[in-house]
């Protein structure tokens, strides 16, 4: 704001220049001439004479105001208006004033509103650099996100929410899945119909829910569809506005894929698409499982499991007992395994041991100790229950100690329910499978993993050190296969294996600060659990950049770095000392995508800021606001028009 030169009452004037004085002189001369002419012409008509002189004086004042542009004292102190994204209607007469700023306007906005470059700020810190003290900050549009608000210091904050962009908010999905896994996307639908005339304003201390309670013209059922890369709808849900949804699908191919999630509704039986967003999913090959099967006798159940696991890349060692001290060992896809005996070295190489109860109770104590020690170090153990552990001879066995099975003759079959990763419990088969006539005695340490239709645990696990031991009462899951439900069979076992088996210790690349949406130019922290790694490379469609890593302060076994991704697919690559390449692909959304979510997060952050910022600012010095020049102009035009009309109507000589 220009320096105040002169104040009179609530009005202030900036320092005038020479041209202002010259213009004033000219106007005074014109006034004098006009007044004199009026006096001469209307010497005998006092009323009209003084009327004309009055009009001349008013016109003079108007022109003077036009020349000197006076300011009016503001009782609110320094008021700054900040326009943010999604602002579309500009009615404010302050738009050309220096306290009216635009935050990252688009090119279209710059052209449409003819924004002066001096009124644009690109970072919120610039606001306080321009105005050392802001008494009142008026924010229009989406607002600012939480990080941006932290950079702003203002007294009173007034926030007006914009028209809600319909779409999806709080989306969540896993960026990377193994082939064969379910990929699930969830979120909420945001779609509110506003009447055009209402723009509810949110003052400070307003309840956050006020904004969400926009006046609904009509609420209708909306449809959320998940569309696979081939363009086909693979999952759909009918939802209401504001409702949570969850959709899932199993990607078919390895690689990087873009799914679309679409929000639509039927309007007179015609589908109207409201919003579409892209979801990037990287489907990777699963890490192979090292499986050890210990069986007291061959069974169809383990045979089916072997078939399934071997077909899908697992490496299997099967030990079948054929005498009291002899096993037949069968290696499948495991040529490089040298150990055959049940030793610590063998257990260390395995991810999961599958055994029946009888095989375990018949192990000698040394082997049992070794096995338990291995479980404590992370090995998973899955036990197919039978009645052996409940026999008198084995009631003190550690297996019975952990799971405490008791006879239960009431059930010999069950329909199995298990967790479908994100979707909660569901059973995909209506087949009743045989089960051991026993039940788990309740214990707080036992965690159920699969249930019967009555809620009884059919598979339970306990933690032992870093590993887990699970026991299954379900028998003959292979019936799913013979029934033609191979997919269900594989899903069931995969679900159990993932929960029980050893966590894969490998060099892993993790992205932090990313729940689901990764945006271009968003700060992302990447860590790799390889302390020998000093850099990573990130390749996108246009370039390759190198990120330097430093030791993480929160995890001594990781090195971390920061980068800002470009829109589209990028791949982080790491090569270890053995020249093994590990990669992690991710998709970054452009700023044009997920507008609803961006708006939602900004609106929420702004509302939070408004609520938290409740104290009024004290004025350090009076602020002055410019008076609109239109007033002066219209006053001058009015006076000049009246003068002209008077002359034309009443002057006989004209």
């Amino acid at each position: 704001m220009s320096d105040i030169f002169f104040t009179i009452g609530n009005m202030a004037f900036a320092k005038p220049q020479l041209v202002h004085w010259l213009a004033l002189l000219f106007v005074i001369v014109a006034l004098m001439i006009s007044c004199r002419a009026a006096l001469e012409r209307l010497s005998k008509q006092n009323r009209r004479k003084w009327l004309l002189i009055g009009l001349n004086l008013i016109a003079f004042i108007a022109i003077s105001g036009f020349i000197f542009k006076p300011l009016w004292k503001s009782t609110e102190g320094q008021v700054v208006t900040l326009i943010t994204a999604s602002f579309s209607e500009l009615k404010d007469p302050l738009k050309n004033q220096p306290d009216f700023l635009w935050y990252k306007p688009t090119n279209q906005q710059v052209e449409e509103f003819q924004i002066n470059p001096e009124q644009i700020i690109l970072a919120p810190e610039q606001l306080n650099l321009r105005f050392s003290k802001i008494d009142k900050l008026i924010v229009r549009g989406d607002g600012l996100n939480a990080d941006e608000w932290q950079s702003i210091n203002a007294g009173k904050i007034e926030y007006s929410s914009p028209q809600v962009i319909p779409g999806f908010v709080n989306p969540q999905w896993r960026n990377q899945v193994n082939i064969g896994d379910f990929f699930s996307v969830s979120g909420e639908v945001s779609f509110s119909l506003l009447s055009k005339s209402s723009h509810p304003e949110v003052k400070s201390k307003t309840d956050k829910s006020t904004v969400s309670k926009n006046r609904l013209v009509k609420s209708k059922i909306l449809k959320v569809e998940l569309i696979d890369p081939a363009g086909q709808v693979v999952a759909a849900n009918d939802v209401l506005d504001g409702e949570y949804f969850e959709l899932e699908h199993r990607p078919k191919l390895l690689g990087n894929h873009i799914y679309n999630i679409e929000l639509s509704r039927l309007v007179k039986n015609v589908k109207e698409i409201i919003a579409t967003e892209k979801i990037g999913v990287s489907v990777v090959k699963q890490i192979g499982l090292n499986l050890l099967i210990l069986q007291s006798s061959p069974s169809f159940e383990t045979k089916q499991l072997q078939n399934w696991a071997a077909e899908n890349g697992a490496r299997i060692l099967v030990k079948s007992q054929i005498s009291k001290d002899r096993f037949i060992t069968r290696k499948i896809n495991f040529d490089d395994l040298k150990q055959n005996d049940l030793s610590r070295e063998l257990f260390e190489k395995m991810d999961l041991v599958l055994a029946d109860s009888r095989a375990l109770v018949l192990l000698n104590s040394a082997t049992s100790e070794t096995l338990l020690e291995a479980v404590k170090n992370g090995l998973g153990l899955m036990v197919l229950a039978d009645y052996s552990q409940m026999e008198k001879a084995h009631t003190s066995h550690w297996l019975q100690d952990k799971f405490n099975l008791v006879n239960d003759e009431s059930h010999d079959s069950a329909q199995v329910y298990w967790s479908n990763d994100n979707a909660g419990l569901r059973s995909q088969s209506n087949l009743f499978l045989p089960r051991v006539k026993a039940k788990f005695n309740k214990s707080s340490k036992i965690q159920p993993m699969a249930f019967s239709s009555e809620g009884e645990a059919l598979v339970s696990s306990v933690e032992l050190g870093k590993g887990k031991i699970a026991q299954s009462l379900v028998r003959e899951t292979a019936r799913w296969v013979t029934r033609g439900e191979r997919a269900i069979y594989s899903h069931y076992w995969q679900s159990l294996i993932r929960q029980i088996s050893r966590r894969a210790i490998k060099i892993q690349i993790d992205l932090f600060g990313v729940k689901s949406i990764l945006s271009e130019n968003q700060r992302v922290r990447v860590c790799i659990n390889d302390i020998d790694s000093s850099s990573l490379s990130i390749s996108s469609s246009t370039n390759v950049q190198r990120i330097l890593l430093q030791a993480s302060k929160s995890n001594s076994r990781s090195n971390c770095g920061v980068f800002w991704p470009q829109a589209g697919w990028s791949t982080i690559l790491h090569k270890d000392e053995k020249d093994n390449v590990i990669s992690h692909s991710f998709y970054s959304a452009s700023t044009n995508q997920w507008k609803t979510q961006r708006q939602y997060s900004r609106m929420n952050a702004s509302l939070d800021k408004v609520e938290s910022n409740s104290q009024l600012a004290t004025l350090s010095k009076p602020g002055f606001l410019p008076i609109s020049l239109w007033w002066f102009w219209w006053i001058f035009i009015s006076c000049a028009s009246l003068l002209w009309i008077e002359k034309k109507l009443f002057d006989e000589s004209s």
Partner: protein
Amino acid sequence: MADLDNANSILSDIDVLIKEAKKNKWISFVFSSIIIFITAAATSWIASFDLAFGIFIAALASAVFLFISFYSYAYRSINRINMVDHLNRHIPEYEESLQLVFNRKPTPLQLIQLQKISTIFNANTESGAHQSILPKFTIRFGLSYSLAIFAVIAATSFFSNYLDRNDNLSSSKNSDTTVENKPFELLDSKVSIQPPGYTRVPSSNQSDLNLEVLDGSKIEWLLSFSRSDAEYFWLGTDGVAHALTQKPDGSWSYAVEINETGFYRFAYKVNDRIANLPEVYTIEVVKDRIPKIKIQEPVRSLVEFAKNDPTQFTITALINDDYGIEQVDILASVAKGSGEAVKFRDKQFKFDTNEATEKGAVYAKTWSLPELEMEPGDEVYFHIKAKDNKQPRAQWGKSSSIIIRWLDNKVVETTAEGIQIRFIPEYFRSQRQIIIETEQLIADRADLSKDNFEDKSRDLGHSQSDLKEKYGQYLGDEIGEGPGEQFGLADGYHGGEDVVHGEASAGIEQSEHEDSEHHGSERENGGAEQHEEHVDEKPEVGHLHQEMVDDSDKSGASELIARFAHNHGSVEVGALSKRDPKTWMKMAVHEMWQAELHLMLSEPEKALPFEYKAYDYLKLARQAERIYVKRLGFEPPPVKEDRRLTGELDKILSYSLSITDKREADNQNDIIQNGFTSINRATSKKLLSKEDREHLKALSKLMLQLSETRPALISHAATVEKILTFGNTRLTACGNCIEKLNQKLWQLMSNPVSRPSPIVLDSELGPEPMNSYINLIRQIDQSEAIRIGKE
């Protein structure tokens, strides 16, 4: 005065002489210019210059000469003074004093001389002595100039020809080089398609090289290429090069008969090397369908006549084919006798009448049982065969079998258990097949024309309708009761894999589809609706076991216990489902109605969920009719543990076995996955690696195989070929073919089976980093507390 008169007289005579001299000069000039003109023109003509140009040159030369001549010193110097000098020099009698005539005030001596020379001058004038010394007419300069012009033109012509010759040589060399550098391109194409004669489809011409033709069509290509200095070839799917024939006008032609869907391309041969042109074109072959026979009457597959019933019956069949039916026969087999004494006698009949309708030809025949030499107790099995007019080998269609039984006043016996007469004719689609083909149709929607799509959809609708009618007969719907135990379930279940929700991936999970279909109807009704719970077809949780209910218990507890105690008895005994097969089949038929409706409306996406449900119900019906019986007979005692594992092991050769599980390398899913990976690895800058090439070749081969039954895939096979040709994915005139190919591969891939895999930490903050983070915070807090404490 008299002297002045003399002087004037002399001067006037001198002027006359001057005029005469000038006259002589310009006559010379003019004649010379004429000579120059003629010479220049003639020379130009001889030098093969353009005539007009030559005349122009000549005229220009003449004009220049004249201009120069008239402004030359020789002409301009003809004046009084020079004339007087000339006369003084050539006539000594003037004693070099003739210039006295210019003196207006001569001295007396000059006057005397003047008088003297004037007398001599007059005398010479009369004698003509002056004329003899004037410049004469001459063409000497003209000739010399002409000679010069001739020389110049001739030299110009000579050198011009020389230069031209060299230019021609070099330009001919250049043009040879340009021809060599010109790329091989197909400039123009025209394809003539002549369908087989029996189809009576007229020939057609087109310029588009991607063809859709009838099986057996003769195709002739007429092509023109950018270069004529090579041989050209036509290469089909097999890669064998067939030489094109060059015509006198420079175009190339090739003709072949096409029977298989595939793709083709052109190649050229230069320096014994054959190189392919980049574009790959597709040929989609529309096969001639086998005749379709639908027996309209009798409706049921088994017709029984009581002993005293009228023995006449009518057979009516609707037969249609793409292009024509040539022959229709009724094959009947009469069975006489019973048990081991059954004798069969085969006969063949023709229909009595046939009538053409919109839907096809309706054949009818009226029979009587005695006419078939039957007696009460005999049976006749007949079916209809129809041959179409396909050339060179006709195709036969066969109908379902109908059984006519003439009863012998005995009770209808149940058919022998275990006998299943295959009543499903060859063309009859099972429910599984309908599902598979519906999924394929949905997947191929983008590649098919609207009419084609609707035709296929309706065709599937007819198949669904036929299947529904068969089941309806079995269930004894409005058609009437009838034993149907001998009929197998045409659900297509072969005891193996389930129908995977595969290719279409419009395989929305059925639970969701139940939602959508329910809500769809609600939406059509309008208004704000709430979610409604949809009824799953899963067995209810807790169901009543009547055998467990204690009737004496009035509290209802036993009923509760019976409901929730879940005693199914022994697993080895009992039906797997509480519903009988017919109930499930009725539910299946109900779903088939809906499926048929949507298929007829060309809405296969909406039909698919109903088809799946029908299939599931049929499976349940199949399972419901199974009864697992506990093994009876000798029940060996359980093995005692101390005796267990005490067998002899001396015959065991090895206690260790190592095998490698090898899946078939040509597994379809692997081929598609490898192909997909290779395509997406091949960017516009990077060329295909050897491994990628192998994968893409396998993919191309697979797509060719699949296109035999799904011609819509051939365009994608062509895209793969183009990628192999270009070596990368930067294809010309491709549009978004790569994207479409990726989408098609996705569709072709079946749903993956879950695979065993150990747990992998999520990309979110896992528990280990989280714990470390928490520990760090604690450390910071502790150190802060210590610091504050110190302060």
